[in-house]
């Protein structure tokens, strides 16, 4: 699910502990690696953004822009899995457990959309809904990774912080809509081809219907999306009002 601030509980400094004053954070070498990682990810998503814009200008329409950014999208979205693994394995310090679960969720759902739906069901790659979530993810990730980069370097422009905790209000529903519409578009093709499905009888006594599974995934958005959205709104109020007080006290 697209969210401008995935892992909402991470406050100002991204990978450090919760709040402004006493920040333990990672050591010098770890910080260097983290900065490099976040810069690379920011650059990657910028590449995707630029790719989209150039393709749009070249073609004159926003149809079938997926193909122009297919490879970097797969690469950088899947790269986020590594990040998630590092968080879970606690190689990245100071993260509140709940935010790890939330981000894990989002990363998993994004990787699922990228590989198990868009890549696997060729017929949906020309759908406009794909563009919808790709744009939402791209903007979100550029802001998120630059947020982490600046936080690690201790120079966080208010604009970036504001963007991260505000733009999600539009980008999140936009991304979710794109994702849901894409899954919905994929349904008839999955039904027809029996993609990723296995039926009885077979010697492992197992059956799986990918079509039903996709429908269940769509339904799961109903309880999950509002929770994540309101969590982000709550974080927004906390973080942005805190900064106001901080600024006043200086």
């Amino acid at each position: 699910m697209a969210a401008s601030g995935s892992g909402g509980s991470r406050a100002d400094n991204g990978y450090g502990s919760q709040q402004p004053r006493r920040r333990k954070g990672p050591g010098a070498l770890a910080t260097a690696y983290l900065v490099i990682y976040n810069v690379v990810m920011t650059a990657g998503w910028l590449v995707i953004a630029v790719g989209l814009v150039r393709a749009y200008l070249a073609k004159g329409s926003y149809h079938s822009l997926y193909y122009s950014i297919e490879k970097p999208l797969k690469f950088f979205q899947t790269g986020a899995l590594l990040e998630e693994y590092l968080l879970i394995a606690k190689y990245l310090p100071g993260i509140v457990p709940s935010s790890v679960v939330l981000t894990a969720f989002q990363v998993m759902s994004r990787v699922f959309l990228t590989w198990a739906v868009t890549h696997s069901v060729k017929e949906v790659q020309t759908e406009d809904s794909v563009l919808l979530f790709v744009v939402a993810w791209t903007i979100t990730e550029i802001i998120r990774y630059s947020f982490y980069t600046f936080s690690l370097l201790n120079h966080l422009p208010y604009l970036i912080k504001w963007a991260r905790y505000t733009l999600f209000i539009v980008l999140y529903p936009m991304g979710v809509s794109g994702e849901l519409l894409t899954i919905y578009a994929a349904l008839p093709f999955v039904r027809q081809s029996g993609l990723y499905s296995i039926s009885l009888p077979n010697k492992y006594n197992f059956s799986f219907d990918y079509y039903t599974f996709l429908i269940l995934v769509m339904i799961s958005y109903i309880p999950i999306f509002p929770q994540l959205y309101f969590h982000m709104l709550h974080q927004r109020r906390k973080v942005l009002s805190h900064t106001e007080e901080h600024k006043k006290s200086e």
Partner: protein
Amino acid sequence: EGKSLRDDEILQHLPVGTTATLYFKDLGPQIGWTTVFLIEYTGPLFIYFLFYFRMPFVYGLDERFTSSPHPVVNLACICHSFHYIKRLIETVFVHRFSHGTMPLRNIVKNCLYYWGFAAWLAYYINHPLYTPPSYGKKQINFAVIMFLLCEAGNFSIHVALSDLRRNGSKTRKIPYPTKNPFTWLFFFVSCPNYTYEVGTWISFTIMTQCVPVGLFTLLCFIQMTIWAKDKHCTYLREFKDYPSLRMPIIPFLL
């Protein structure tokens, strides 16, 4: 902060001065362990029967109340039922719990897990299109023997652990092997009851050759490894002379 006091500690004997501050923590709504176990284990027992006897709403009206031509399906039902009946008996007569209660919401989680998986695996084993194991009688007989051995082992360990608390005390003691050969696993492992339990489910997987059973076995293994490691660490912390050869759940490995 720190650990909470035990139920049997006497206020007068605590290392405090003339005034002490007691901190209370509201644990929320609780439910007894025995109650939880009884509900958790009765569910799968009866849910399996719904599938075994092929209730109309399960496999459709055409297949209602039919029975499978494969003997292994009957055998699987007997084993599954035996397993849960054994657990129920142990809950009532054998287990001695150190905590009286657990949070109420655990029962929802636990029941969903046990009941859900029971339904899922029972569905496939008792399905009209069920395929018996590839290696036939050899595979099934091997699985049955392994099953019985592991159930006996698991029961022996539960009895041995229960005997450690025969006088009703709730303090922890190091369990040691007894004359019963099944308890000799204590030489190598801190929690042989979990080892045997995983063995039971592996044997059931082999017996039915069914992926959902295999998945359930895998999840059980993961959960029990976590519990075993926890227990093992607790033992190591509390007892300086804890046998160093022992691993948490798998001899020499894990």
